[in-house]
C-alpha cells in the first residue's frame, strides 16, 4: 500500500534534490566541455558554472533561480495500491518542497490574467500505466528560458534524414545564446503533434549519452550533436565548441501523411530526480 503522505513526502524531497544537486551526468558533461574550450571567456564561464553547482550542493541552495514549472512523470504500476488521491498528493508534495527548500514560486493561476499561485502548483503531471505494483515518480523542474525555445516541426513523411537534422539545428540557431547554452536537446520524433512534444520533454529525463533507442537514432542524435557543436555559439553564447551537452531522441510510430519532429531545450542546468515507491 502506497499512502498519499508517502507520495507527498517523496515529491517534496525530490523537488529539493533536483533543484540543488545537479545530475551526475550533467556535471560530467560540463567538465568535459571545459576541457574542450580554449577561449578565455568560455573557460571563465565554464569554471564559474562548475563552481556554481558545487556551491549549490554545499549550501543546499537552488542551482538556478528559475526553479521551474514542475513537470512530473508518474509511472503507475497497474497492480499498485494507492491510498488517497494521487494527483492531489503530488501537488501537495510540490507545494511543500518549494516552501521547505526556499525554491521560487513561478506559476501564475491564469496564462493571460496572471497572478502567482504562491505554491508553484499546479504541477504538470504525465501519467503512464505500466505492468507491476510500483509507483515511479520523476521530477523535472523546467526553467522557462529554455522552454520558450521549444519547437515543433510537422515535416513531410518524405523528409530526408538531412531535413530532420536541419530542422533541429535551425531551432538551436534560433535559440542562440539566449537560453543558457551549452544545451541538452530532447528530440521527439513521430506520434502526433502532442506526442512528439511529450517525447522531446521526456527525453530530457534520460541520461546524457542515452542518444537513442537503437543504432539508427543513436547515430542521428550523434550527428545532430556534432553539427550543433560547430555553430560556435559556445557557453552562454561566448563562442566556442560547447554549444550542446548532448542529444536524446525518443520515437513513436506515426501517420502515413506526416513526420512530427519536436525539440525541447534544456539549459546547462538540466535537473531531474526520481524515486520508486
Amino acid at each position, binding site marked *: 500500500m502506497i499512502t498519499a503522505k508517502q507520495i507527498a513526502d517523496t515529491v517534496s524531497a525530490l523537488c529539493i534534490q533536483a533543484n540543488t544537486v545537479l545530475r551526475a551526468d550533467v556535471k560530467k558533461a560540463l567538465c568535459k566541455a571545459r576541457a574542450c574550450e580554449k577561449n578565455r571567456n568560455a573557460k571563465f564561464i565554464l569554471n564559474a558554472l562548475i563552481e556554481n553547482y558545487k556551491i549549490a550542493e554545499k549550501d543546499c541552495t537552488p542551482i538556478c533561480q528559475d526553479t521551474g514549472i514542475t513537470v512530473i512523470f508518474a509511472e503507475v504500476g497497474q497492480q499498485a495500491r494507492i491510498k488517497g488521491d494521487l494527483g492531489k498528493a503530488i501537488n501537495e508534495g510540490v507545494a511543500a518542497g518549494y516552501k521547505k527548500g526556499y525554491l521560487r514560486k513561478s506559476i501564475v493561476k491564469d496564462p493571460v490574467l496572471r497572478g502567482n499561485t504562491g505554491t508553484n502548483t499546479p504541477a504538470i503531471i504525465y501519467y503512464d500505466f505500466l505492468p507491476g505494483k510500483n509507483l515511479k515518480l520523476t521530477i523535472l523542474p523546467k526553467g522557462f528560458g529554455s522552454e520558450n525555445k521549444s519547437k515543433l516541426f510537422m515535416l513531410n513523411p518524405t523528409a530526408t534524414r538531412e531535413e530532420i537534422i536541419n530542422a533541429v539545428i535551425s531551432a538551436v540557431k534560433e535559440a542562440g545564446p539566449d537560453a543558457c547554452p551549452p544545451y541538452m536537446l530532447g528530440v521527439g520524433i513521430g506520434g502526433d503533434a502532442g506526442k512528439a512534444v511529450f517525447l522531446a520533454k521526456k527525453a530530457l529525463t534520460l541520461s546524457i549519452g542515452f542518444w537513442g533507442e537503437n543504432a539508427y537514432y543513436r547515430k542521428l542524435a550523434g550527428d545532430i550533436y556534432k553539427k550543433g557543436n560547430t555553430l560556435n555559439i559556445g557557453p552562454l*553564447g561566448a563562442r566556442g565548441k560547447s554549444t550542446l551537452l548532448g542529444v536524446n531522441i525518443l520515437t513513436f510510430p506515426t501517420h502515413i501523411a506526416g513526420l512530427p519532429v519536436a525539440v525541447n531545450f534544456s539549459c546547462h542546468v538540466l535537473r531531474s530526480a526520481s524515486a520508486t515507491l
Partner: protein
Amino acid sequence: MKTINLPAAKSELSKLKAGELVLLSGTIITGRDQAHKRLAGALKLNKKLPVKIKGQAIYYTGPTPCKPGEIVGSCGPTTSRRMDAFTPALLKAGLAVMIGKGNRSKEVQKAIKKYGSVYFSTLGGAGAYLKRKIVAARTIAYPELGPEAIHEFQIKEFPAIVWIDSGGRSL
C-alpha cells in the same frame, strides 16, 4: 580584470568594448517582465516612477526566496529579449546599464547606441554563484509582484561580459 563601479558615468561606460569580461561593483536595481511593463506603462502616461531610472543599472532577475540569515536567494539573470519591447522607453528616460543574458533586438541595439548605454550579459544559470556577489539587498518597489518585485542590490565583483557596447556593437 577591470572593475566598473555602478552607477557609472556615461563617459566611463563609453570606454567599454563588446567582448570584454569585467567585474561590476556598487548599486543596481532589479526588474523583469512585469516590472518593465509597469515602468514603461508609467512613462507612457507621464506618471511618476517608484524608482529612479536616470543613470541607473538594472538587472533582469527574479531571485528565489531568501533563507533565514541570508542576504538574498539564488539570483542569476533571466532572458533579456523579453524586456526588449520596453527597453527603448527606459533608455530614453536615462537608464544607463542593463544586465541580463543573451541577445537583444535591433531596436534595443540602436537605442543603446543613441543613448550611450551598455548592455552586459552575466552568468545564466549560475544563481548560486552570483548570489555570493551580492552584499546587501532590499525590496524597493512592487512588492506585490513577489519574485518579480524591484529590489536594490549592493554588488561586489559581479562578473559580466560587455555584450553591446555604447557604440552599438554586439558580441
